């Protein structure tokens, strides 16, 4: 597509990068076909092709107002468009650049500013979030139904396996996951232990930086990124095999550390190394022998019918497709048919809070397709999706490793 980026903007690195991305787009419109918001709203401006055009307009020096900002805000960043795009347009990079530019030039409302600052000030901080969540769990009886549904019941943390194995991997504890669902990482440790791998945590690691990054605060995000790199570096030097992500949302960001810190002299190299070592838990499991799980499940009786919700950050962000399905089948589960599996559930990080209406519509559609084939359980790979789906599902929602670990436990009790 022809571009004429504003001369001053084109002198900057993001300006050049945006121009190169825009030049790749041929305006074919394939992306609109798989865009969740275009499907709901039917307005060119609420699909990727229109957003690309809005960003192009802005970077070409045309006046931008809250209109452009609103359409960019409505983007889920699910990246279904990138999977669909035949021309290889790196939409997520363009969106980052476009959002930052627009946010620098368009004032948000006071209400919007407060909400966004609160999210940035709470979610990435384990203790603050834990405190507020515990308060919510205790006081849930006075909360309105809509809020109550979004607060999961308190989990009793199961013990971390203590046996030491030769193979060692590091796990990201994350920010909200330890409070919302502490058992995901515990289950991961137990599943990996059964496969002869010790999972270790770096206490000083925290939020991956995604919250700030997606709320147009890239420098703040880079602070989190550097903190994690510092926390992990001694382990990396000691030779850990991989940095395991149990939330695909975090995984898709940590895998980009190398790109996000490319201009940071002190961290560029380390960041690249971290990104190389980062693996989604599914990428680890698929290479292991899972027949042990299969046998266990067989002993329990009829295979459970499982609906898998592939998080966007897994299938579109990290382009990991078919892997979890293989794991579940190898482990002896039966997969149900899920129509429109490429579509976002509406969780999308802070989207479920900032764009509640759209998020809820997407949730309703997603649950309909997940429950369409009457599964015994719904499984997913990301805490955001998990919590969002659970807030409206009639079926139990688990993380894939929780399901595997449950199978292990049931198997043991049978023996």
């Amino acid at each position, binding site marked *: *597509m*022809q*571009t*004429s980026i504003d001369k001053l903007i084109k002198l900057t690195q993001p300006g050049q990068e945006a121009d190169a991305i825009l*030049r*790749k*787009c*041929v*305006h*074919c*419109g*394939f*992306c*609109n*076909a*798989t865009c969740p918001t*275009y*499907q709901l709203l*039917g*307005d*060119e*401006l609420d699909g990727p*092709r*229109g957003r690309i*055009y*809005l960003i192009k*307009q802005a970077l070409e020096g*045309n*006046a*931008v*107002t809250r*209109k*452009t900002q609103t359409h960019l805000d409505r983007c889920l960043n699910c990246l279904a468009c990138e999977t*669909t*795009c*035949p*021309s*290889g347009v790196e939409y997520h990079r363009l969106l980052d650049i476009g959002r930052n530019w627009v946010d620098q030039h368009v004032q948000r409302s006071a209400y919007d500013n407060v909400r966004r600052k609160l999210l940035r000030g709470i979610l990435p901080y384990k203790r603050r979030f834990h405190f507020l969540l515990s308060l919510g769990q205790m006081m849930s009886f006075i909360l309105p139904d809509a809020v109550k549904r979004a607060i999961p019941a308190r989990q009793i943390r199961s013990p971390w396996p203590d046996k030491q194995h030769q193979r060692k991997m590091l796990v990201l504890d994350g920010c909200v996951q330890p409070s919302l669902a502490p058992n995901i990482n515990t289950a991961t440790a137990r599943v990996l232990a059964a496969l002869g791998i010790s999972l270790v945590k770096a206490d000083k690691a925290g939020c991956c930086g995604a919250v700030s990054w997606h709320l147009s605060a890239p420098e703040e995000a880079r602070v989190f990124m550097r903190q994690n790199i510092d926390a992990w570096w001694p382990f990396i030097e000691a030779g850990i095999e991989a940095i395991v992500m149990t939330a695909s949302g975090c995984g898709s960001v940590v895998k980009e550390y190398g790109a996000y810190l490319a201009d940071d002299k002190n961290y560029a190299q380390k960041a690249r190394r971290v990104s190389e070592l980062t693996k989604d838990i599914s990428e680890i499991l698929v290479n292991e022998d899972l027949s042990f799980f299969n046998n266990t499940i067989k002993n329990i009786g009829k295979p459970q019918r499982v609906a898998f919700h592939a998080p966007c950050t897994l299938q579109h962000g990290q382009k990991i497709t078919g892997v979890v399905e293989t794991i579940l089948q190898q482990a002896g589960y039966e997969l149900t048919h899920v129509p429109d599996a490429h579509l976002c559930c509406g969780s999308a990080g802070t989207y479920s809070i900032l764009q509640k209406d759209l998020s809820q519509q997407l949730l309703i559609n997603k649950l309909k397709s997940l429950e369409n084939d009457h599964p015994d359980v719904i499984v997913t790979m990301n805490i955001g999706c998990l919590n969002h789906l659970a807030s409206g599902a009639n079926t139990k929602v688990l993380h894939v490793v929780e399901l595997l670990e449950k199978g292990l436990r049931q198997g043991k009790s049978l023996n």
Partner: protein
Amino acid sequence: MSENRNTLSKQFLQFLPDNAVLTHNEDLHPYECDGLSAYRQVPLVVVIPETIEHIVRIVNICRKTNTPIVCRGAGTSVSGGALPLENGVLLSLAKFNRILNIDPVNRLACVQPGVRNLAISQATQSYGLYYAPDPSSQIACSIGGNVAENAGGVHCLKYGLTVHNILQLKIVTIEGELLTLGGSGLDGPGYDLLALLTGSEGMLGIIVEIVVKLLPVPECASVVLAAFDEIEHAGNAVTEIIASGIIPAGLEMMDRHATRAAEEYVHAGYPDNAAAILLCELDGIKEEVSAQISQVKDILLKHRAVQTRIAKDEVERQLLWAGRKGAFPAVVRLAPDYYCMDGTIPRRKLAFVLNRISELSEEYQLAIANVFHAGDGNLHPLILYDANKPGELHRSEELGGKILELCLEVGGTITGEHGVGVEKLNQMCVQFDTLELSQFHAIKHAFDPDELLNPGKAVPSLHRCAELGAMHVHEGKLPFPDIERF
């Protein structure tokens, strides 16, 4: 202009919500082009109605204020069919995206015009049915647009174009009347207005509902890929496959450039050093398919295919087609922009035409990737250029014009399935004479006397042809001698 804009939008806002009437430049720009982004025009107003009642009211307002209307479905046209007009309303049918009824017994579905082509086949899959025409953009293009352009696709070789696969249309006329054309039977009394409307490029009425035919999903479909060192060999193989009496479900060719781009997109394992590859799909019952596959394979080898490969399963078959279907946009991996042509030639002229195209490519110093519905002679040369380099677009347009004229020269036609839009208006002057064009205009006037529906598209004005004729004096004869020159 802005006064017009305000008066119109006030009237629209009486029955449409704020977000369905766009009037600010910031909102209008992303609507300034369809899939042919080299041509751009910001519309006066964009309206996004949700009901037929809305459309009727919009049409009534436009008729009374003499405002032209351009309809837009998914905005994927590559001939500029949905290019807006400066003084016109752009009517988006994107919200008409519901499948109203599926009738598996009679094998038909009633759909709204904004439904995506592929969505019909997905929705009817559970009944073992599908909608056969499959333009390469089927993931995104809308069925209303398919009807407007009489879209084809890979499988139209066996199953026909859009016109062969629809039974009934509901249209809103410029008078604001709702008409039903066609019916559930295969033939009706009177003129075949359904066929007339199909491919009329939004010039005669606004399509608001479509009844499409559905076909049973074939029991078995298999695709064979063959690589050739010379395009001519591939062309000969195509001719013989058709001559042998086999009707493949699809028979497609890609040259080296197109294959390389498609490979980078889908990683289907297309051979990277072949001058051309052929994809030939056979479908039907198992026995028939396996017999024909071996027959086709023999023909391919006889014509010096250097490699043949049969897709081992459905996943591989889909992958091989995904590359072909994404080949257009994928060529930007080779150059920043492409200009897609759509001519049709007699199959036997293939080698000659491709050689001429490659000479023209040299002459104009612009690379061309060829994607070709080989089975039915529909060529899609993609001229690769860089829109940011001054003059390149103009050169591409000129080269494109030459290619279409070449198609006519060998006894072909200037469009296979993309429609004329704004892109091929000049070549219409070459293909048709004054009398024929006057009849086209007479038909237009019968439906739309004030020329308010997509005016200026599809059929060139006689003056335009006369002006163009002045530049193209062929063998000493002046085309359109009866028309006054300016």
